[in-house]
C-alpha cells in the first residue's frame, strides 16, 4: 500500500484494528505501464526529493527509475491541472493506457492485523537553519546525501562531480563530520548518528575514483568506524586512496569571493590556527526522527527515549513499550544498513513468536489448472510482439516483426500487444494458448530478469508447463540502445525473435524440484545469542537442539554486569537460562560439540559428541552458529608482570567485590584498543569504549575525588551511548587521545604504576602515577571457528570471525543455504545487537522451517549417463559444491552426481564437460545450438 499512512491503532496484541489513510495517486496502477509519455509532456518541474533537490522531477513522476511499484503518480502540490481544473491535462491526452484519473480521492482502510512493525526510518538533519555552514546560501556547500546523488550514474550529473555554483569540475572537497550529531547547541541532537564517519569515507574514496587527482579531506572529532571490516576500509582510504583526515571540529564555512569558494578555518592538533579553501564542502549530516514519525509513535502509543527514538530493552531490542507493536531500523536509534536489515528479520521473529498459532491461517497457495502433457506433440509456437507503448514501437517496426515471425518454422500464431505485461493482455494470452492449442510461447518484449516470472505464471494459468516460454528482449537490447537506427533495430528484433523461436522449439516441460524439510533447528552455542535463537524458535513451535561446549549456559555475558543503558545483565541472563531450561521443545546438549556434518538445506545430519565421547546424530533443516568469541589476553603494557595492570573484565570483578586496593585507590588509568585496531587485528572490538566509560562513571560516582583517565584513539560511544561519554566528561573523567605510533608506556613505580603518554592538548609528555591500570581488551574469535566452519562449508574472514553471505543485505545468512550466524561469532558487538542478530537468525531459519518442503527452480544441472565418464572436471569448477563423484550403480567406473538442492543452474559444469555428460535443463546443447544457428542464419 503506497502513499499510505497509519492514522489510528485500536485493539490489543494479536488483534489490532489499524486505520490507514491512502492518499490519491491520480494514476490507475492497474492501467499504468510506466511508459513515461506523461512525464515527457508534463510542463511542471519541481525539485526531486529522490535526488535530494540536486535535480528536478515533473509534477507527474515515478520516484526513481527502478521504483516498485513502477507506477507514475501526480504530486497534487505541483500539478497544474489539480490546482486549476480545466488547465493543462497533457498527461491525460498522451496516456495510451488511459491511466490518468484526476478525480482520484483519498481512501480510508480498516485493517485487522495480529501485530504491527514500525519501520518508518529517519530523516537527514537539515543544516539550513543553523546557518554557520553556509548551507542554503553557498551552493557549493552540500549535504552528504546530495553528494551521493552527484556521484550516482542515475543522479543529476550522471556521476560527474561538479561545483554546483558554476558547473566546473570539483578539485578539492572537504567533509565536515558531526553536522546535526553530537551537538546540543546547534541542533539539539546530542547523540552520535553512527553512520556518518563510514559514509563520509566511502564518499571520499568514490569521489576520488570519479575525479582523478581529487583532494579530499575529512574533518572529524573521532573516527567511528566500529563495524565489521570498517577499520580496514578506513586504513585503505588513508593509505591507498590518499584521503586526508584532520582531527578537529570545524565550526563554520565562509564564502570567499564571488566564485563560491569555501573558506574553512580551524585549529589543528598542534594548536595552530589554519585556513584552507575548498571547491566543495560536504556536510556529513546526522540522522533524526522526522515529525511524522513522532506523530506515528503517538498514534501507536509507544514510548520514546530522550533523543526521540523508540524505547526498547537491550534484551528485547525490537519490542516497544506496547505489546504487539515492534520496531526495526532507525526508529529505535541511528543505525547502518546491516543492523537495519538484521532488525527487520528480528522484528519478524518477534512477531512470529506472538502469532505462531495463527501461522498459515490467512495465506493461501495460488491454484492452477492441470498441466497439459505435450509429449509427442509437434511444436505449435505462438509469438506475442509487444509495443511497450512507444518504447519498442517508437523505434522498431513491430508490424514488420509480426509478419516476419509468422514465416518462421512451427510458428502458428502471431499477435501484437500494446503492453504484453498488462493484466488484460495476460488474460488474452491465456485464452489464445487454449483457443489455438499453442504448446510453445515466445514473448518479444523486455527482459526476462523482471518479466519472465510473470509470463511463466500466464502459461501455468493456461495449463501449459511454465518452462515452455522464451523471451526475446527487443526493448533493453534493441529499441533502447538503437534509438537512432530504427531500420537496424527492426532487423535485430527479427534476429532476436528467430533465435527465441529456435530455442523454444526444443524446449521441454520441466518440473520444479521439491525437497522435504526437517522442521527442526540446531543451534550451536549456549550464550545469549544462541539461547535467544533457540528460545524464539521453540516459542514459534519448532523443535531445537542446543549444543553448548561448557557445562553452563550464558557464555561471555556471565562476565558482564550492565548493558550500556544500565540493564542488569545477570538478572536477564538468569531469566533467559530459566526459560531455555523449562522449554520442552529445546533439547540441551551440554559439554558437547558438533563433530561431523552431512546433508544440505532442509536435510542436515549433524553428529553431536559429548565430553565423555558419546555421539548422537541430530537431523535438522536449518542451523545457527552462535559460538561466541573470546576475551583477548594482553601481551603488552606489562600486564604479565605488574599485578596492578588488569583487564576490564577483571576490573569489573574487583570493583563489584569492593576489593580493598580498588576501593581505596585514588587514580585510575584506562587504556583503550588493547589488541584491537592494529597489525593483523585491524578491527574495532566495538564494546570497549562504552565499557570503560561506564566503569569510569561508576568510579567517579562512588567517589568524586578520584582521578580517572581514559587514554583512547577514537572514542567510539556510538549512537545514544554518546550520552555516557558526555556524562563521564561532566563528572570530570579526563580523556587523553593517543595515536598508534605513540602508545602509552606502563611501568612499575614503587607501589604505584606509572603511565606515560603524549598529551596533544598540552603538547608535552604526560606522566600519570596511578593505583590501577585497566586495559580495554579486544574480543577475539574462537580459535576453532574455522574447524566448525569447514564442517558446514561456511567461511571465516581474515580475522577469524564467521563471514556472512552479504555484508549489507544478508547479514545473518551464510552462503551455504540453511545456515545462519549470530552474536560474537560474527563480529564483536554489544548485547542488544547480539540479541537482534539472534532473533534475525531465527527468523531466517523459520522461513525455511515453516514449510514442509521447499520448491526449487527446475533450471538445474542434469547428468547424461550415456556420456559422463566420470572424469570429474566439473567437480572442481562447481562454485556451489553441488557435484560429487560416485561409483556407477552397475559397478563399472565412476559417474558424477548432482545435488539439485545445492545446484544453482549456473552452467559452469556444462561449459567444462568435454563429453556432453552434463547439461542444464532449459539450456540443453540442442537448444543453445539451435539458437546460435538461428543467430547466424540470415
Amino acid at each position, binding site marked *: 500500500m*503506497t502513499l499510505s499512512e497509519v492514522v489510528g491503532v485500536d485493539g490489543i496484541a494479536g488483534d489490532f484494528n489499524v486505520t490507514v489513510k491512502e492518499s490519491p495517486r491520480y494514476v490507475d496502477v492497474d492501467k499504468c505501464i510506466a511508459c513515461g509519455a506523461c512525464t515527457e509532456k508534463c510542463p511542471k518541474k519541481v525539485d526531486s526529493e529522490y535526488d535530494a533537490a540536486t535535480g528536478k522531477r515533473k509534477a507527474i513522476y515515478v520516484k526513481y527509475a527502478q521504483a516498485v511499484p513502477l507506477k507514475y503518480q501526480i504530486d497534487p502540490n505541483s500539478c497544474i491541472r489539480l490546482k486549476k481544473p480545466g488547465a493543462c491535462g497533457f498527461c491525460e491526452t498522451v496516456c495510451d493506457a488511459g491511466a490518468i484519473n484526476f478525480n482520484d480521492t483519498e481512501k480510508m482502510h480498516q485493517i485487522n492485523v495480529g501485530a504491527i512493525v514500525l*519501520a518508518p526510518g529517519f530523516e537527514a538533519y537539515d543544516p539550513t537553519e543553523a546557518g554557520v555552514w553556509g548551507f542554503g546560501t553557498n551552493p557549493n556547500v552540500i549535504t552528504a546525501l546530495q553528494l551521493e546523488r552527484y556521484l550516482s550514474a542515475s543522479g543529476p550529473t550522471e556521476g560527474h562531480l561538479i561545483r554546483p555554483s558554476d558547473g566546473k569540475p570539483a578539485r578539492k572537497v572537504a567533509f565536515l563530520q558531526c553536522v546535526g550529531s553530537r551537538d546540543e547547541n546547534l541542533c539539539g541532537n546530542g547523540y552520535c548518528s553512527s553512520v556518518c564517519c563510514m559514509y563520509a569515507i566511502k564518499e571520499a574514496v568514490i569521489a576520488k575514483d570519479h575525479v582523478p587527482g581529487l583532494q579530499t579531506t575529512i574533518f572529524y572529532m573521532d573516527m567511528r568506524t566500529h563495524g565489521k571490516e570498517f577499520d580496514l576500509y578506513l586504513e585503505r582510504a588513508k593509505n591507498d586512496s590518499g584521503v586526508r583526515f584532520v582531527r578537529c571540529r570545524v565550526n563554520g564555512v565562509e564564502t570567499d569571493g564571488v566564485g563560491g569558494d569555501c573558506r574553512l578555518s580551524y585549529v589543528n592538533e598542534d594548536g595552530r590556527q589554519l585556513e584552507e579553501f575548498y571547491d566543495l564542502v560536504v556536510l556529513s549530516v546526522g540522522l533524526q526522527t522526522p515529525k511524522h514519525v513522532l506523530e506515528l509513535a503517538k498514534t501507536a502509543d509507544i514510548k520514546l527515549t530522550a533523543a526521540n527514538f523508540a524505547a526498547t530493552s537491550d534484551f528485547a531490542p525490537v519490542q516497544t513499550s506496547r505489546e504487539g507493536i515492534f520496531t526495526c531500523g532507525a526508529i529505535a536509534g541511528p543505525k547502518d544498513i546491516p543492523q537495519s536489515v538484521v532488525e527487520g528479520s528480528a522484528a519478524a521473529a518477534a512477531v512470529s513468536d506472538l502469532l505462531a498459532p495463527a501461522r498459515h491461517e490467512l495465506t493461501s497457495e495460488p491454484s492452477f489448472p492441470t498441466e497439459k502433457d505435450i509429449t509427442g506433440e509437434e511444436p505449435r509456437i505462438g509469438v506475442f510482439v509487444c509495443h511497450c507503448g512507444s518504447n519498442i514501437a517508437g523505434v522498431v517496426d513491430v508490424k514488420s516483426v509480426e509478419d516476419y515471425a509468422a514465416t518462421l518454422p512451427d510458428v502458428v500464431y502471431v499477435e501484437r500487444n500494446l503492453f504484453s505485461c498488462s493484466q488484460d493482455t495476460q488474460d488474452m494470452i491465456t485464452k489464445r494458448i487454449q483457443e489455438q492449442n499453442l504448446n510453445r510461447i515466445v514473448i518479444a518484449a523486455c527482459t526476462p530478469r523482471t518479466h519472465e516470472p510473470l509470463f511463466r505464471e500466464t502459461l501455468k494459468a493456461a495449463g501449459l508447463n511454465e518452462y515452455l516460454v522464451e523471451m526475446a528482449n527487443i526493448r533493453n537490447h534493441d529499441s533502447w540502445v538503437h534509438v537512432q537506427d530504427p531500420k537496424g533495430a527492426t532487423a535485430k528484433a527479427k534476429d532476436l525473435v528467430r533465435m527465441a523461436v529456435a530455442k523454444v522449439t526444443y524446449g521441454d516441460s520441466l518440473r520444479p524440484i521439491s525437497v522435504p524439510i526437517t522442521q527442526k533447528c540446531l543451534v550451536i552455542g549456549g550464550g545469549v545469542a544462541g539461547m535467544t535463537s533457540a528460545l524464539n524458535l521453540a516459542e514459534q513451535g519448532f523443535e531445537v537442539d542446543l549444543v553448548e561446549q561448557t557445562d553452563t549456559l550464558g557464555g561471555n555475558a556471565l562476565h558482564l554486569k550492565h548493558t550500556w543503558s544500565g540493564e542488569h545483565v545477570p538478572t536477564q541472563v538468569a531469566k533467559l537460562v530459566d526459560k531455555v531450561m523449562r522449554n520442552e521443545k529445546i533439547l540441551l546438549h551440554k559439554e558437547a560439540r558438533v563433530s561431523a556434518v552431512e546433508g544440505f538445506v532442509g536435510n542436515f545430519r549433524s553428529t553431536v559428541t559429548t565430553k565423555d565421547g558419546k555421539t548422537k546424530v541430530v537431523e535438522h533443516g536449518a542451523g545457527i552458529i552462535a559460538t561466541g568469541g573470546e576475551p583477548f589476553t594482553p601481551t603488552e603494557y606489562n600486564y604479565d608482570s605488574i599485578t596492578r595492570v588488569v583487564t576490564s573484565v577483571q576490573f569489573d570483578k574487583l570493583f563489584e567485590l569492593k576489593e580493598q586496593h580498588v576501593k581505596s585507590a585514588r587514580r585510575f588509568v584506562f587504556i583503550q584498543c588493547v589488541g584491537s585496531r592494529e597489525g593483523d587485528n585491524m578491527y574495532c572490538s566495538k564494546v570497549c569504549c562504552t565499557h570503560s566509560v561506564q566503569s569510569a562513571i561508576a568510579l567517579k560516582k562512588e567517589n568524586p575525588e578520584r582521578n580517572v583517565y581514559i587514554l583512547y584513539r577514537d572514542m567510539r560511544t556510538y549512537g545514544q551511548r554518546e550520552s555516557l561519554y558526555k556524562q563521564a566528561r561532566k563528572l570530570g573523567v579526563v580523556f587523553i587521545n593517543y595515536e598508534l605510533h605513540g602508545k602509552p608506556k606502563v611501568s612499575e613505580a614503587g607501589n604505584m604504576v606509572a603511565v606515560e603518554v603524549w598529551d596533544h592538548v598540552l603538547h608535552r609528555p604526560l606522566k600519570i602515577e596511578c593505583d590501577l591500570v585497566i586495559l580495554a581488551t579486544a574480543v577475539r574469535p574462537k580459535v576453532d571457528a574455522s574447524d566448525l566452519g569447514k564442517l558446514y562449508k561456511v567461511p571465516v574472514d581474515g580475522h577469524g570471525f564467521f563471514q556472512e553471505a552479504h555484508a549489507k543485505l544478508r547479514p545473518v545468512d551464510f552462503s551455504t543455504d540453511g545456515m545462519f550466524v549470530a552474536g560474537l561469532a560474527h563480529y564483536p558487538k554489544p548485547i542488544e545487537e547480539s540479541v537482534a542478530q539472534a532473533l534475525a537468525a531465527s527468523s531466517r531459519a523459520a522461513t525455511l522451517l515453516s514449510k514442509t518442503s521447499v520448491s526449487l527452480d527446475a533450471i538445474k544441472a542434469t547428468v547424461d549417463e550415456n556420456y559422463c565418464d566420470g572424469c570429474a572436471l566439473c567437480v572442481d569448477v562447481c562454485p556451489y559444491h553441488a557435484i560429487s563423484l560416485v561409483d556407477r550403480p552397475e559397478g563399472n567406473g565412476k559417474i558424477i552426481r548432482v545435488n539439485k538442492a545445492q545446484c544453482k543452474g549456473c552452467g559452469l559444469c556444462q561449459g567444462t564437460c568435454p563429453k556432453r555428460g552434463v547439461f542444464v535443463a532449459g539450456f540443453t546443447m540442442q537448444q543453445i545450438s539451435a539458437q546460435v544457428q538461428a543467430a547466424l542464419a540470415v
Partner: protein
Amino acid sequence: MLGTKKVGSVMIVGGGVTGMQAALDLADSGYYVYLVEKSGAIGGAMAQLDKTFPTNDCSM
C-alpha cells in the same frame, strides 16, 4: 494485555530496507503482510545511495 485471539496477518509501516526485510521474512513464514509506505514507491533511503561499502556494490 494479551488477548486470546490471534490474527495471522501483520502490518509493516515503512518500506525501506528494514521494513522490506521484515515483510519478506513474515510472508515467507506463513503470515499475510500489509506493507504500508508513505511515499509512492518502496525502497527508502538506501535506494538513494550510489554505492555501499565495504564492497562498493551498487545500492540498487
